[in-house]
């Protein structure tokens, strides 16, 4: 039994000349809620498809529940729930037919009670056809159908994309319900930071197919900081602190965005250049994400937590 629910090692995928996923190495411990963050087109869907063996890597490897992604056995696949991007389901099926179909593959594990509860909670009747459901309702059905077999690992690709506020909240509530059960691992990709902040234990940030950060959410929140300094005129243009993301010059002020830099280090540097009055500027997760993924001078920053 592996300690890790998901592990990728140097996972790479080229489409033509461009790398959609570039030497991605991350690990998701069991029981963790893991948020894969990244902008549109960053490579999140490709990474997930590689993990599920729906795409073949150009290089590198990945494992789900200890099993190589290219050779996932039916038994292991049975323990992995997958909510696909766009929640594409056969349009002709009714919800009941969909449940019957899904259930045939899980004679032992299917939890009819949970499925029924979720349908009730989402106020969906089993007789409705998939093609008559809205995007949000289809997402809810996808979730119910993926959760009912009690998967050990649930992988969701941008599950709340395009959902309205109310449905998104209900969806998250469903996720929390699953989280409350011990030992379940959830890997989900999203670019809605509010959702990630609510439910994730750990996050990974992917940019242009490569991993930029892999740490717990709390660590990220406390590591990415912004400070404002009063600087004398004639300041050096070069700001030389390791861990610098951005520096912005005001009239007699300098604003630095830093990663993993302690107060002491900042003060030491400030003393060095004769700057004074370090004032921390609080940041929202959105601010932190934006600053982290778009360093001013075009460098791509990489940072790893514990």
């Amino acid at each position, binding site marked *: 039994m592996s300690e890790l629910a998901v592990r990728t090692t140097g996972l790479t995928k080229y489409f033509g000349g461009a790398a959609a996923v570039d030497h991605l190495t991350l690990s998701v411990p069991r029981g963790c809620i893991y948020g894969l963050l990244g902008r549109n087109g960053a490579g999140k869907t490709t990474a997930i498809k590689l993990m599920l063996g729906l795409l073949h890597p150009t290089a590198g490897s990945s494992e789900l529940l200890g099993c190589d992604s290219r050779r996932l056995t039916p038994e292991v696949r049975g323990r992995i729930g997958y909510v696909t991007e766009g929640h594409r389901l056969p349009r002709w099926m009714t919800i009941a037919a969909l449940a019957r179909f899904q259930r045939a593959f899980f004679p032992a594990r299917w939890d009819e009670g949970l499925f029924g509860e979720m349908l009730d909670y989402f106020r969906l009747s089993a007789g409705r056809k998939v093609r008559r459901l809205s995007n949000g309702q289809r997402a809810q059905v996808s979730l119910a159908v993926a959760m009912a077999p009690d998967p050990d690992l649930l992988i969701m690709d941008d599950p709340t994309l395009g959902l309205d506020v109310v449905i998104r909240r209900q969806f998250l509530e469903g996720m929390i319900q699953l989280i409350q059960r011990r030992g379940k691992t959830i890997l989900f990709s999203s670019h809605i930071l509010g959702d990630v902040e609510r439910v994730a234990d750990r996050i990974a940030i992917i940019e242009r197919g490569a991993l930029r950060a892999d740490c717990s959410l709390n660590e990220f929140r406390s590591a990415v900081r912004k400070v404002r300094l009063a600087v004398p005129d004639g300041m050096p243009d070069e700001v030389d602190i390791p861990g610098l993301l951005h520096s912005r010059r005001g009239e007699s002020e300098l604003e630095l965005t830093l990663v993993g830099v302690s107060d002491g280090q900042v003060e030491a540097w400030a003393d060095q250049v004769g700057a004074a009055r370090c004032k921390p500027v609080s940041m*929202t997760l959105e601010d932190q994400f934006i600053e982290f993924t778009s360093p001013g001078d075009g460098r791509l920053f990489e940072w790893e937590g514990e």
Partner: protein
Amino acid sequence: MALWIEISPGSHEPIYGQIVSQVDRAIAMGELLPGDRLPAVRKLAAELVINPNTVARAYMVLDEQGLVVSKTGSGTFVADPAMADRDAAELNALSERIDGIIARAMNMGLAAREITRLFAARLKAFTGRRQGGQKDE
């Protein structure tokens, strides 16, 4: 027990910090009395639609601060301040924060007397808002 907790993701304060501040405030205002039981981690997580670990972390921080006491199996209860040990390190930390406020006030140009008056006024207003209005010195 009236305990309304609201959190908003996307704020400057991490979610666990928001919970800590609100419980802190509730205890200070007398909305939570010593011995009151805080909501169960799972229940609060489901209500607020957040990860249970976040709630657990908030409770842990409150425990470390001495505001609550966690009893495994029974839950988390508001601590009795009379019984709590006054941690020297905590008092030190508190003193440093007070120093910071004093420093800022002085930088603004306030004299010592004005600072004292300001502090007394704020303390009076704060305790005046306490429910059950116990008179404090």
